[in-house]
């Protein structure tokens, strides 16, 4: 007892509680990363399809097929409250969330089923999961393949299906290429012609000769467009000529056009290697493909692309500015009241809520600067705004302002690690201050600058609130970088990973179906940001080790 009293009097319990605070913080981070990791990976893993015979509330039997997405224990009282019948004496009931797919047939993708009502389960080898362009997945059995209206008499139905699917995918690639790049180019040039004509009208130089030239160009482009349209029509006819015949698990027969099927797999026949292969196949599709069905299915390529481009552009703005400011603070300014003000300003820039940057960006960059730019340089497009609306350029500038303190602080830290003797040596050899800076100090501080840039990029990649106001959209019709001059379209709106998470997770009509995709997107974003930060930490540690010797 005495020992306990002394233990308390020493304050040791408090030390333990403090230690626990550290453990709790670490646990929170680890738990969160683990949660995102597991759930995010789960999106790509091919789940097996269960065939379940289920007893409905009215006693009738129902045959279902689907993938079990969740399992949870619910108190029986809760189920009784919601009007379900649960046998007396049971306290907890396990229920499963079954992804049944087939939204076009049964009207819903998901359903909860109660464990006690399951009569039997099985995993038929032949169950196929079809991913489709619309209506979500179809889960059922493959019966036959129709090529150009003709039912194929092939014993290996799956093989001939794969064959036709590859063929369809080739056609789809061709169509995408035609639509996105070739027709897109003609449309873009037609739009430029329209703007040119409008510009001439505004300037009052729309004489007959100029108009005739525009008209003749337009006719050429129209011809080109019609030819492409014809080609596209042919491709679509060929794509739509194939179909597959499938049945749902309860025997309903359907014909799905091949054009609607993106991919298919038979999870119940896959072994671990097959599943792993399919897992990576899914990861690739997720990273490299465009989204489908209001972003709830398919890939996130445009969001990745938009984020990367925006972040690169932002680095171009923020790095020189941040480095110059840091160099001024550390190397040039006399330490006094003014540098104190600058430091306070830097701290304020770091502390101002990001949404305030968004408001400022919208008001100052988009409406004030963008509006003036439009009036000066793009009067022909008015009243449709060019730079007077949110876009890539303004978003990058806004985020450059937001990440400026990150670069300054990190560069300053890099500069302060460089021993004084190096600068003095350089100056003593007759170098000017600029030469000292450019030839010796900056190269030595480059890891610090790198760290700053990496941290700024990591911060910008995850920032959403200001971007919502200055140019991010849920679905951009075209990428901001393409084959049409001037190639980089700074005025275009773009997609962003962070906003994608917010939009799909909270604004989409089918949150249940979209949730795995949101976890996967979150996982990608977290992995990128954690990696960037780890690299920054490494670079910084390397830097401090490097100059330790010089300091003594």
């Amino acid at each position, binding site marked *: 007892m005495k020992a306990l009293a002394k233990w308390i009097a020493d304050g040791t319990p408090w030390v333990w509680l403090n230690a626990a605070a550290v453990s709790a*913080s670490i646990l929170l*981070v680890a738990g*969160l990363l683990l949660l995102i990791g597991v759930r995010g990976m789960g999106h790509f893993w091919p789940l097996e399809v269960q065939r379940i015979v289920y007893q409905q509330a009215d006693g009738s039997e129902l045959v279902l097929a689907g993938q079990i997405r969740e399992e949870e224990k619910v108190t029986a*009282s809760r189920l009784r409250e919601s009007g379900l019948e649960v046998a007396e004496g049971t306290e907890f009931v396990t229920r499963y969330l079954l992804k049944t797919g087939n939204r076009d047939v049964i009207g819903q993708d998901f359903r909860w089923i109660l464990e006690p009502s399951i009569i039997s389960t099985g995993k038929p080898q032949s169950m196929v999961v079809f991913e489709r362009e619309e209506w979500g997945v179809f889960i059922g059995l493959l019966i036959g393949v129709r090529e150009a209206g003709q039912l194929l008499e092939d014993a290996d139905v799956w093989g001939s299906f794969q064959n036709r699917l590859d063929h369809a995918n080739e056609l789809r690639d061709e169509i995408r290429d035609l639509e996105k790049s070739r027709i897109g180019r003609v449309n873009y040039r037609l739009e430029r012609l329209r703007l040119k004509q409008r510009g001439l009208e505004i300037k009052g130089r729309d004489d007959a000769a100029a108009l005739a030239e525009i008209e003749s160009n337009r006719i050429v482009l129209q011809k080109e467009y019609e030819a492409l349209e014809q080609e596209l029509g042919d491709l679509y006819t060929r794509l739509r000529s194939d179909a597959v015949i499938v049945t749902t698990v309860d025997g309903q027969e359907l014909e799905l056009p091949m054009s609607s099927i993106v991919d298919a797999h038979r999870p119940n026949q896959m072994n671990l290697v097959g599943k792993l292969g399919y897992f990576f196949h899914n990861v690739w599709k997720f990273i490299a493909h465009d989204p489908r069905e209001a972003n709830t299915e398919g890939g996130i390529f445009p969001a990745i692309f938009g984020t990367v481009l925006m972040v690169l552009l932002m680095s171009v703005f923020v790095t020189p500015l941040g480095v110059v400011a840091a160099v001024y603070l550390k190397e040039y300014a006399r330490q006094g009241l003014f540098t104190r003000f600058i430091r306070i300003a830097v701290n304020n*820039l770091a502390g101002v*809520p990001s949404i305030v*940057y968004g408001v400022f960006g919208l008001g*100052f960059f988009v409406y004030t600067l963008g509006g003036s730019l439009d009036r000066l340089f793009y009067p022909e497009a008015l009243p449709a705004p060019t730079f007077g609306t949110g876009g890539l350029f303004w978003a990058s500038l806004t985020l450059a302002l937001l990440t400026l303190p990150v670069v300054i602080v990190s560069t300053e830290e890099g500069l302060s690690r460089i021993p004084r003797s190096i600068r003095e040596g350089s100056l003593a050899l007759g170098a000017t201050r600029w030469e000292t800076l450019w030839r010796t100090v900056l190269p030595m501080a480059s890891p610090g600058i790198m760290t700053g840039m990496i941290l700024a990029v990591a911060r910008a990649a995850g920032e959403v609130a200001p971007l919502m106001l200055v140019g991010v959209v849920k679905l951009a019709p075209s990428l901001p970088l393409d084959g049409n001059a001037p190639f980089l379209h700074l005025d275009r709106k773009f997609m962003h990973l962070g906003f994608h998470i917010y939009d799909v997770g909270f604004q989409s009509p089918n949150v249940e179906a979209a949730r795995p995709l949101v976890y996967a997107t979150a996982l990608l*974003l977290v992995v990128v940001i954690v990696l960037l930060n780890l690299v920054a930490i490494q670079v910084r540690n390397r830097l401090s080790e490097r100059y330790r010797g010089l300091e003594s």
Partner: protein
Amino acid sequence: MNSAHKAGPVKIAVRSDNFHLWRGRKDRLASKIIGLGGFVVIAAVLLILFYLIYVVTPLFLSAKMSRTVLTDNPAWLKSETSFLALEEQQQVAFRITENGSAEFFRLNGLELLESTEIVSGGRNVAVAMGAQGDSGLVAVAFEDGMVSLLQNQYSTDFSAGVELRKIIPKLDFPYGSGQRELMPGGGITGLALSDNEKELVLAVAGTGGRVRFERSLKREDFLSGEVSLEISVSALDVAFEIVAITISNDHRWLYLGDESGRIHFISTANMEVIQVVQVSDTIITSMNMLLGGISVLAGDADGNVTQLFPVRGGGNQYSLKEIRRFEGQQAAVTRIVPEQRRKGFMTVDADDNLTIFHSTAGKVVLTEKLSGQPAALALAPRASGLLVLYGDSPAEFMDIDNEHPEVSFASLWSKVWYENYSGPEYVWQSSASSNEFEPKFSLTPLAFGTLKAALYAMLFALPLALMGAAYTAYFMSPALRRMVKPAIEIMAALPTVILGFLAGLWFAPFLEENLAGVLSMMLVMPAGLLLFAWFWTRAAQSARNLVKEGWEPVLLLPVLVVLGFVSLEFVGPLQDMFFKGDLRTWLSHEAGISYDQRNAMVVGCAMGFAVIPTIFSIAEDAIYGVPKSLSDGSLALGATSWQTLVRVILPTASPGMFSAVMIGLGRAVGETMIVLMATGNTPIMDWNLFEGMRTLAANIAVEMPESAMNSSHYRILFLAALVLFMFTFVVNTGAELIRQRLREKYSSL
């Protein structure tokens, strides 16, 4: 770097003077450019601050009015005017003369465009009254008791280009050119008109307290689309002289003003007087409806204007309540003119003063002395121009610059009694589908929500961050510290959109399922930990040697996991005992505490998670920076390490820890995505842990994309941003000053 050591025989090249001149120039140029770099940072902060102020300022500027005297009245304008209206572009006006002609004229040069006699026979007009809003419908009552309905309409001709557009007026009779006899025998003194999709309503007051109320139901023929009217008339005779009459836009209520300062509140369903309200000691001199037709404005002979509207009480009974009183005029109010797009109005008094008010803001916007008592006056639909006719002296046109009358300090921060509400309240509701909507711009619930979210976040974050920082800086072994610090940095780098998404889609449902378990963790964890620690100190030396001093957090990781699991799994029986099976249901059914799935507790945890690393890092730096000599001295005097920490280290580092807390608070106040995703974003004012809120930042994110540039709404959102900016500016500047002071102190020790 190695090149310096590898250099062989030194070659000395003699360079020309020009080269050195050039070097010097380059050096000076570089100094200038780099000097600019420092300014840019300050300039950026000032630019943000001043731009926000620049956008917000017009909200608080007073309104202005400039007057133009038009040319001398031409002969056609000499006749008395019964009714005057102005179209949207303020180019063409419409008037009804006392002798019954409808005239359109151009303001520029007072050119008469069109003159039509409403009814042939030269009868004189008794009263003419326009309908609410900008339909252009006018009812004209003649002295013989007949009433005509007509409409002034305008179209724009762009054929000569946008700049030279021409307004083409048109007189229309939408309900036929025939007349209706409303008050046989004449003697009409007052007239009220209201028109909506379903019915057209006319009310007239005559001498001797006669009231006639005509309701015309509109029936549309399905095939031809033609509208026919089904008319019913009811009558009421009162025992006083009626000085003013109006009807509400929903046609349920009729208001009569009398000579002894009373307003009679009448139901049109059965023409019964429900209530008589004394609004003034003197005579009621003028009465009109505010935009939307809910509020009545009554002016009296002393110059007061009273706003009233029916308030629904218990049992679906309505009673007419006096809402607010506007004082500003000195003499009897002769006219009340409502604005057509906003809840503002304008009065003229017997001393020729013109005053502009705004009802929601409850303030006088502008007062101006007119050149005389106006004979007629018309306000443009956007309330940006006013045409005044004076009879003999030349007419005047006033340009009114009154962009944001609805904003005042009181309307932003105090309780306001809005239309259709049963009492004054703090409400944020910025827009609705209807034009006649009264915007409710109270920032109070948003500021409240911001503080509530920040408070719960700090409750979660402070203990973990500060205690963790103290341990890491003072007790932790250096090797472990080198691992913990990057982990905390990673925690800081996690995007808030991910925290918000997990909070909204994973933690909120999880908490709803396991409310009792999560709450019990707060008790079970500390208690369990201390118990474990005690047994650990009593454990065999060999076991204790496994974990070196300064590595306790690693030892505690599995303990915490087990304790968390225990709290979640074994709370069931306790719940059964105390809360009838489920705490969540017990709260809403028994305790009467409402529970939203996305609530303050979810936000507190998620945002707490976001601010832990900020507070942790700065506090840890402050504690770690305390000179070693201080703790050495204390320990040498026999204090235990805990006593040293609490009595020596923490007091020294406390300014730094305080600034850490302030910066954390600043971050919590401005955080957007977490609150946006983890709350329901309803602007309510309630400290309930289990209800949501809407914060200033989330409100900006939600509403900014939809607000029209330079509208009041847009500027108020900028004001919200400015408030956030100023708050974090003060907090960050304070925190930075404290830290600079602390650094000086440490270096002197």
